[in-house]
């Protein structure tokens, strides 16, 4: 089956069709604009499933490769080069899944300038999908930077009170990291004459001497995006000020771009430096886990709490990545998906509460389960998923990461995994405290008695996430089957480079 367009091109650029249609709608036609955006996002999701159908789970290498010359100049070759493997396929699916959900969540939340909102949202989807699929460094940089612009507007126009501050901070932080990455990309291109990922793997020796610096330059860009402690300060601001749909995408997908960047570029291109820095990265990750959890616990605002919990959860992903065992890295990839699902759902529910009461202070709620039982039940599942209860998705990811890190030769000590395990307990503490303060006990504030329970649309936005939360929790094997071959290949690449070095 083929529509005459390469599936990866189609899945990346299809949202532009929606953008084009929306451009020709009048800004008063809010309904038509929303439905167009939703339909576009749903079709994109269908296309991503079609990509999945063509994906061979047992293969480690790049699949569905597309490579055409884009720019040729003496000594310079930039390709339009795309491909998908076990590291990226789930990220693409996650992006394609979360976008329609986020769009559906804006139905009543975004009333102002709907046209612009939907245009930026669909452009953001193009950028994110592109980041996960492109394999040419320059092209990667183009997509990487491009995602900044729509997100900047989503926060800056439709955000909360301090939106402009948050938007500018978001932009400048990310930009600061990526400029150094650009320099590193130029250096690599100068030394190898190519920017294509697969060629660079072969010509790795040419820039091996400079890899410490290159690792740091790439690493800074990715660490800011993840975000790793101490570069995380933009995240709470961006999350708190962003509209709900923006937060869902920010936590669900944009942060994963950083973690994905480590896996795609830092590990295979600079293996010696990776091993050298692995313990330090792991220490920062663990500080992030504990620090994020502690700060979450201290929050009074639900959205801030969830935002800081992301710092903590992403710490596990980074830990798993730099433990460099097949198990831990697979766990990291799966945990990226898990975090997207659970935190996405948490932000959605917090957003729903906010729409009803226009506050996110936990003290303004209490005992609302009695009033809104459906919301309470769904929130409970999502909370448990986020804190890693066995049988739900969070457990599978975190457990695999910890198990893999425990025996990691690169880290060399079980203490890393041991301390990180504390993060799981702390997550239980702060998440349950939030649940208790908001949903359990007697109804303290009168206004809450009139809270409306979820309507059909809101349930529809949450159900797909819940299905996946249970699916991954109970039967993760199909997901691991997608991830594992590429991860094993990646880990063996890093370790063989190490053996060659010794």
């Amino acid at each position: 089956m083929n529509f005459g367009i390469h599936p990866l091109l189609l899945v990346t650029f299809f949202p532009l069709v929606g953008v084009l249609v929306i451009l020709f709608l009048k800004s008063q036609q809010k309904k038509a604009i929303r439905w167009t955006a939703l339909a576009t996002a749903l079709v994109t999701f269908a296309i991503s499933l079609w990509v999945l159908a063509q994906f061979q789970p047992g293969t480690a290498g790049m699949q569905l490769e597309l490579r055409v010359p884009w720019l040729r100049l003496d000594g310079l070759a930039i390709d339009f080069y795309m491909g998908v493997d076990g590291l990226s396929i789930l990220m693409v699916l996650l992006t394609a899944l979360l976008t329609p959900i986020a769009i559906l969540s804006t139905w009543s939340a975004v009333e102002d300038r709907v046209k612009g909102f939907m245009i930026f949202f669909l452009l953001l989807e193009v950028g994110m999908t592109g980041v996960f699929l492109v394999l040419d460094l320059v092209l990667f940089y183009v997509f990487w930077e491009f995602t900044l612009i729509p997100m900047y507007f989503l926060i800056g126009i439709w955000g909360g009170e301090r939106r402009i501050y948050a938007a500018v901070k978001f932009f400048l932080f990310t930009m600061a990291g990526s400029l150094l990455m650009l320099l590193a990309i130029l250096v690599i291109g100068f030394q190898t004459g190519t920017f294509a990922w697969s060629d660079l793997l072969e010509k790795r020796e040419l820039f091996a001497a400079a890899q410490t610096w290159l690792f740091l330059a790439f690493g800074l860009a990715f660490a800011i995006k993840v975000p790793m402690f101490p570069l995380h300060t933009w995240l709470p601001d961006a999350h708190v000020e962003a509209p709900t749909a923006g937060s869902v995408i920010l936590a669900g997908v944009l942060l994963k771009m950083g973690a994905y960047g480590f896996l795609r570029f830092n590990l295979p291109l600079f293996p010696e430096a990776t091993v050298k820095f692995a313990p330090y990265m792991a220490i920062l990750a663990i500080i992030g886990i504990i620090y994020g959890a502690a700060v979450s616990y201290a929050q009074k605002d639900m959205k801030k709490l969830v935002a800081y919990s992301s710092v903590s959860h992403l710490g596990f992903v980074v830990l798993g990545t730099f433990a460099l065992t097949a198990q831990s890295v697979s766990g990291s990839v799966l945990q990226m998906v898990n975090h997207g699902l659970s935190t996405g759902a948490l932000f959605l529910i917090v957003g729903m509460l906010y729409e009803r009461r226009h506050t996110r202070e936990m003290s303004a709620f209490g005992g609302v389960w009695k009033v809104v039982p459906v919301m309470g039940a769904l929130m409970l599942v999502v909370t448990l998923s986020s804190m890693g209860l066995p049988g739900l998705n969070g457990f599978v990811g975190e457990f695999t990461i910890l198990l893999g890190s425990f025996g990691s030769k690169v880290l060399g000590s079980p203490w890393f995994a041991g301390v990180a395990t504390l993060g799981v307990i702390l997550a239980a503490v702060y998440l349950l405290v939030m649940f208790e303060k908001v949903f359990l006990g007697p109804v303290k504030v009168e206004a809450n008695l009139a809270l409306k329970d979820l309507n059909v649309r809101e349930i529809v936005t949450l159900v797909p996430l819940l299905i996946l939360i249970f699916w991954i929790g109970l039967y993760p094997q199909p997901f691991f089957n997608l991830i594992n071959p590429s991860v094993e290949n990646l880990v063996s690449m890093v370790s063989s480079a190490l053996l060659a070095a010794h």
Partner: protein
Amino acid sequence: MTQADFFSILPIITILLWALALLVADLWIPKERKSMTALLAAVGLAVGVGISLSQVGQTALTFKGMLMLDNFAVFLNIIFLVSGILAIALSYDYLKRMGIERGEYYVLMMFSIAGMMLLTQAYNLIVVFLAIEFLSIPLYILAGFARPRLESEEAALKYFLLGTFSSGFLLYGIALIFGATKSTGLEGIMASLSANEANLVLFIAGASLMLVGFGFKVAVAPFHEWAPDVYQGSPTPASAFMAVSVKAAGFAVLLRIFLTAFPTLAQQLMPVVWGVAALTMVVGNVLAINQTNLKRLLAYSSIAHAGYLMMAFVSASNPAQTGQAVSAMLYYLVAYGLTTFGAWAVVVSLEQAEGKGLELEDYAGVGQKYPWLGAAMLVFMLSLSGIPLTIGFWGKFFLFRTTVEAGFTSLALVGLFTSLVSVFYYLRVVVYMFMRPGEPRVRRDGWLSLVAVGAAVAVVLLSVLPSRLLDMAAQAVLRLQ
């Protein structure tokens, strides 16, 4: 004058004669129909573009070694002519609206363009000086064209005083070089240098003075201080024209002289130029942060961009990188020129009489009320800060690439960090346009919108398909040496 001589300056002659004829014809064009003059001037420039295109691929040293015709000159000549056409498009409605519509405006612009074209072809220092004066004097008048507005007169006076002052440096430098090498022709200078007959002390002193003179013209730090005042006071379309063409002309002659005639000196002066480039990037970008007047903001931004262009000049001192650096600079000039004209077009659309409508606050709400204009300005701001999917990104990409490859990674780092600073103030414009409510007053004019939207589309399209323009820029350097 041989046929080859004549052919080599055909575009210049055309523009000059056309301008003179227009000056006379303008007397019979009634006052309320001065748009006729604008149209005729634009047609003249378009004819110039056509003739210049016919010169592509020709190389000739004419007028006994006084002038050089090569792809480099042709490429730049086309930049000047096109920027002249764009400037006329911006002026057309502006002059009428501000009540300063007079036919001489367009004629002066054409004279200045002819001077610029002569400058890029100059192969003799005397011709260089002549051309610089020829291009500057009409500009002094253009800067003061909005008289009796005080700011405009101030701009003209400042520009004139500092301009002549810098010409003094230039002339003194030329004199010293003549003393050192017994020649003002680039060929003679090269011969004298390679035969080791030149007095090197005099020569270096002369070259340094020339560098100062050119530094004033292209507004690099520490010779940049006139630019914000002049750009602010001049009629806005004239500022746009100066920001693009004068800069391009200045850099063209810098490259021509320093890389062709003084190649060894380029390496000795490199640390100085390095410092000038770094300082300019820092000063331009840092001072732009506090600007609330859009004209001043763009002026400082143009200083910053002169710093980036200077970076290419530093890289060009590495002989292995000269070709690449020059093509990177030409590409950057086109990217910068196109984007800048677009941005100035937006400024012109918002400007009101008496210098009103230029503050950042006046831009509040533009994105909401005039989405296309806002989107265009967004594209320009992103392009000036070098963010992908704009031509500005490729400009910076090639510039940084050649800088890294020439071995000046630390300078590239300065460039990167200062462009991070620039993101801040360019985004501020975007913040005002899209994120603050307001009641902007926008002048709807077909030509203005055409320039703004057309430039925006070009900035994006050329970034998706960058090859063609790059090829042209690469071709343009082949015969520099």
